[in-house]
């Protein structure tokens, strides 16, 4: 009895991953390799740039997914957090000659510190009130940015010089100065961030977050310091979003405060919910909805503004019929369709003798 119990213990299981787990890991690895090596060959420069944005925003939706899906904290200020990351990275890239990965790390850490400072008072609130406070914060950051603007190579703390005629672009890493190379660079950074979240979800913080989301009293009764773990989630999400901001800075070369409007945080939450907050694939789906779909429509000459309506309907659909989002629903629907087709094919044609 004891023997079977110990063998069935999930901690032993995690050491030797089960077959489906291995298959899933292999498929993910193949997909990442395909995106890294084959995709840039297949796409035009327009779509390569778009996919770089998808990589950047998949980190942002990943972080938001951690907050909303894992811990149950709704933040409407993620675009502002992204802007902080981009601002810090741009300043460091202009002011220093540090290697790019180091700048990304610093941007992540500084953004994390900012996120924690905001999180400290905000974590006393939940639900609508937390959402409201984070939205106000996003609004405040937008106002500040409109005044000081993003660094553009000028002198001083803000690094902004409005009278400059020639504005130098934000530099990229020397190994990834071209667009396809920078796309690959972004995908690698994003993959690292996904692994970071994966490592959290599968260990103690993930279990603590699951407990907090379902029932805070139960989490406390299980000895979990709920305050610390909520702050941890905020810190992790801010770090990842800060790194995303750093990658974004290099991707676009020039940053403008107009590129980070407050209402985008709301759209971001909508696509994150649509993609699915309980799976990390949901973050990828959300980023595709947020960046790839508008690029596609633009290319076809259709206004991307229509997407707001689509996202509205999408969120309604998700909230009513598929709370785990597209990442969960589409594979299930496809499997159902496959079963239906197989049954149809196996059924003898009418009139045939049996």
């Amino acid at each position: 009895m004891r023997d079977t119990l110990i063998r069935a213990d999930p901690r032993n299981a995690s050491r030797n991953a089960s077959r489906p787990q291995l298959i899933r890991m292999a498929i993910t690895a193949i997909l990442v390799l395909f995106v890294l090596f084959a995709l840039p060959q297949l796409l035009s420069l327009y779509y390569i740039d778009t996919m770089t944005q998808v990589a950047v925003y998949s980190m942002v939706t990943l972080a938001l997914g951690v907050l909303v899906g894992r811990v149950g904290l709704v933040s409407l200020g993620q675009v502002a957090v992204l802007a902080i990351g981009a601002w810090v990275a741009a300043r460091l890239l202009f002011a220093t000659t540090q290697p790019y990965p180091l700048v990304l790390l610093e941007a992540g850490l500084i953004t994390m510190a900012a996120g924690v400072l905001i999180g400290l008072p905000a974590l006393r609130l939940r639900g609508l009130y937390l959402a409201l406070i984070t939205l106000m914060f996003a609004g405040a950051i937008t106002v500040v940015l409109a005044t000081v603007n993003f660094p553009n190579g000028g002198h001083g703390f803000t690094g902004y010089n409005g009278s400059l005629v020639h504005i130098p672009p934000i530099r990229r890493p020397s190994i990834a100065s071209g667009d396809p190379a920078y796309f690959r660079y972004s995908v690698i950074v994003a993959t690292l961030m996904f692994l970071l979240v994966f490592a959290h979800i599968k260990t103690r913080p993930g279990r603590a977050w699951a407990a907090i989301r379902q029932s805070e009293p139960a989490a406390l009764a299980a000895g979990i310091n709920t305050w610390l773990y909520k702050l941890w989630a905020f810190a992790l999400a801010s770090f990842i979003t800060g790194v995303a901001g750093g990658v974004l800075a290099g991707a676009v070369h020039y940053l403008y405060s107009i590129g980070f409007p407050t209402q985008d945080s709301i759209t971001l939450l909508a696509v994150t919910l649509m993609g699915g907050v309980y799976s990390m694939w949901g973050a990828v789906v959300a980023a595709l909805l947020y960046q790839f779909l508008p690029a596609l429509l633009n290319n076809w000459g259709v206004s991307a503004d229509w997407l707001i309506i689509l996202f509205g309907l999408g969120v309604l659909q998700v909230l009513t019929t598929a709370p785990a989002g597209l990442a969960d629903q589409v594979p299930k629907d496809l499997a159902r369709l496959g079963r239906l087709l197989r049954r149809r094919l196996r059924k003898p044609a009418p009139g045939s003798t049996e």
Partner: protein
Amino acid sequence: MIEVTGLTVRYGGVTSLDDMNLTFEQGTCGLIGPNGAGKTTFFNVLSGFVRPAAGTVRAFGVDLLSMAHFRRARWGVRRTFQTEQAIEELSVFDNVAMVHEHSKLGAATRRKDVLDAIEFTGLGAVAPDAKVRTLTAGQRRLVEVARAVVGRPRLVLLDEPAAGLPDEESSRLADVIRGIPEHTGALTILVDHDMSLVSACCATTAVLDFGALIASGPTAAVLRDDAVIRAYLGVA
């Protein structure tokens, strides 16, 4: 041993516990009373969810009220809830291990303790890596009990553990509850409206009414007490 003196809890204008004095010595003790008598409030004070307006609580010589709520669970104040609160998306093992993760014991010892607790509650037939959402209501209750008894709890608070369970599962639960003091050495307090469960499990019982203690002593004597019959049990 737990000593409560002068415990008073107010929610706005409502006094839920009114200068309550109470001592539980050892074993499994019952705590009964009509709805709104303050039983769950008392548990909430012990586990740190409610801050009393006045009074002291000493458990095994320690001033419980000065400890943060999550630290009390680590120290050994464990509880279950009226509405079962096992974490659905985690496995049985993780649900039970959660509270034991904070101990300083080695990983192997911790694992053995968790599996012991699962087996003690009679959940051995359920795979430890089964997700809680696949279990029946009775099994979920047992997961909560396993979480309360894992490791070395000092105080186990069971808040209507048999509520809503079919008779068969309820009697199995009674066997488990009776075994807790011997298995863990913890003082166990049982709140329930099922008098047969309370009589079966508890040697001593205390009765609350309107936030004050109206009787306490050996269970059989308490259940015959006139004041208890008037306030709670009704005329037989």
